């Protein structure tokens, strides 16, 4: 999922042109509406998310394939809710306590998570990371006691350095395999051999990064690349609010 989720692709679609703040707000609104929505509304949201992915030039099929492990997790949620929710038994088998209410609750939980994940993918796919960072900074600004600039920079750095740390981890694993780590039966020793150098390397990278940021005048006063909100953004927000009302209405 990482390759899809963290991959911004430039494009000239309406979704690419839309301000990141509106997209993040839409994600929050639909997620909140999803908490109170029933299955028909979630089904509608799922269809809309699919259409929007296609509109943003992101293949829905590719997204689903990229999310295969996430789908396995959702299947586990569905099964767990089916077997643990009390209600009317579907099968007359004592070792399979699946209930109709359980299936319903499981589908609701999995459906909500799926819709949120698809819309989240849509946002990351169609929005430049710097715009997301600026939007987070803008949205956090009114909240007291939260250092919005630092929070936004942390999010940006996290997105930037996840692939670097993963790549360092892969290199470390290859180096260990080259020195026959497979022959070591002790899982603790194997884990330590991977984790300790990786941790050390990550700390060194963090140190160098701090120096590099300092050298480039990083400080509290920065220009935020935020655009003014136009009629297009307001219109999109109205459509989103209307859609959320529809979701709640048909639930």
């Amino acid at each position, binding site marked *: 999922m990482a390759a899809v989720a963290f*991959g*911004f*692709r*430039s494009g000239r679609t309406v979704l690419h042109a839309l301000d990141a703040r509106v997209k993040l707000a839409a994600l929050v609104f639909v997620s909140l509406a999803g908490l109170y929505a029933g299955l028909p509304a979630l089904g509608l949201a799922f269809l809309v998310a699919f259409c929007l992915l296609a509109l943003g030039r992101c293949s829905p099929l590719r997204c689903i394939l990229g999310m295969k492990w996430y789908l396995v997790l959702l299947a586990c949620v569905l099964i767990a809710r089916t077997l643990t929710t009390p209600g009317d038994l579907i099968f007359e088998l004592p070792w399979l306590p699946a209930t109709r209410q359980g299936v319903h609750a499981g589908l609701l939980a999995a459906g909500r998570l799926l819709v949120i994940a698809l819309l989240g993918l849509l946002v990351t796919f169609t929005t*430049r*990371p*710097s715009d997301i*960072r600026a939007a987070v900074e803008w949205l956090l600004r009114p909240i007291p006691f939260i250092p919005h600039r630092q929070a936004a920079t942390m999010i*940006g*750095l996290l*997105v*930037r350095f996840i*692939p*670097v740390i993963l*790549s360092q981890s892969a290199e470390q694993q290859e180096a260990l395999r080259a020195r026959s780590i497979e022959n070591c039966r002790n899982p603790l020793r194997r884990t330590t051999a991977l984790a300790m150098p990786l941790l050390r390397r990550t700390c060194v*990278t963090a140190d*160098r*990064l701090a*120096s*590099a*940021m*300092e*050298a*480039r*005048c*990083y*400080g509290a*006063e*920065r*220009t*935020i*690349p935020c655009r003014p909100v136009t009629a297009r953004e307001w219109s999109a927000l109205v459509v989103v609010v209307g859609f959320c009302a529809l979701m709640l209405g048909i639930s």
Partner: protein
Amino acid sequence: MDIIEIVGLKHRYPDGRTSLDQIDLTIARGSFVVLAGANGAGKSTLLKHCNGLLTPLAGTVRVCGVSVMQDPLHARRTVGMVFQDADSQIVGETVYDDAAFGPENLNWPADRIKESALRALQLVGLATMPDRSPHLLSGGEKRRLAIAGVLAMEPEVIVLDEPFANLDYDGVRRILAQLVALHASGKTIVVCVHDLEKVLAHAGRLIIMREGRIVADGPPESVVLEAESHGVRIPAAVRLGGTVESWLR
């Protein structure tokens, strides 16, 4: 006209070892200086003082006449530093974001940031991939992006710590061509290397460091002969009695 003036600079590592000892150095505006020395000679530490990243134990560093201690931001705006490890210098999530990071920190207006970042990317030949993730760039492209990140801040001096490390022939030539072009455009260039072969032909001054001290300083043709006695390999052409040829020919 000197742009960097260093007087009596001393510095120690946190473990107490002396890294720089009584450095007196001036760098003229518009010059191309090569700072050479073996590993641990103190080259990188000296460059970090020019950028205000380290605090001297004694002595002063002045950039354009302004003390780095008193105004480190001025030093960082004037002296752009390209680190050896490009991977940990690149902070942006995309190529454009990284080029724009410095100008954003300088609190420039959005239009100027965009113009400056795009011009810097154009200069280093990365203008065609502004949305590419830096993680997916080749080693040479990452190094060029690190240079673009500094160029976007429009510094007068560019100091580069081992800019040719881990690059193939083509990568070295591209970076070298970049440095020569920047020097021709009036920038002051300070390149820190341990291998003189690639860059010496373009330098107007060679400084050799050893154990935290400057042990030789002058025109490359007169200083290069004593390089080997300080742990720096003499270029093959000089060893054979000739002159160093540019890698750009």
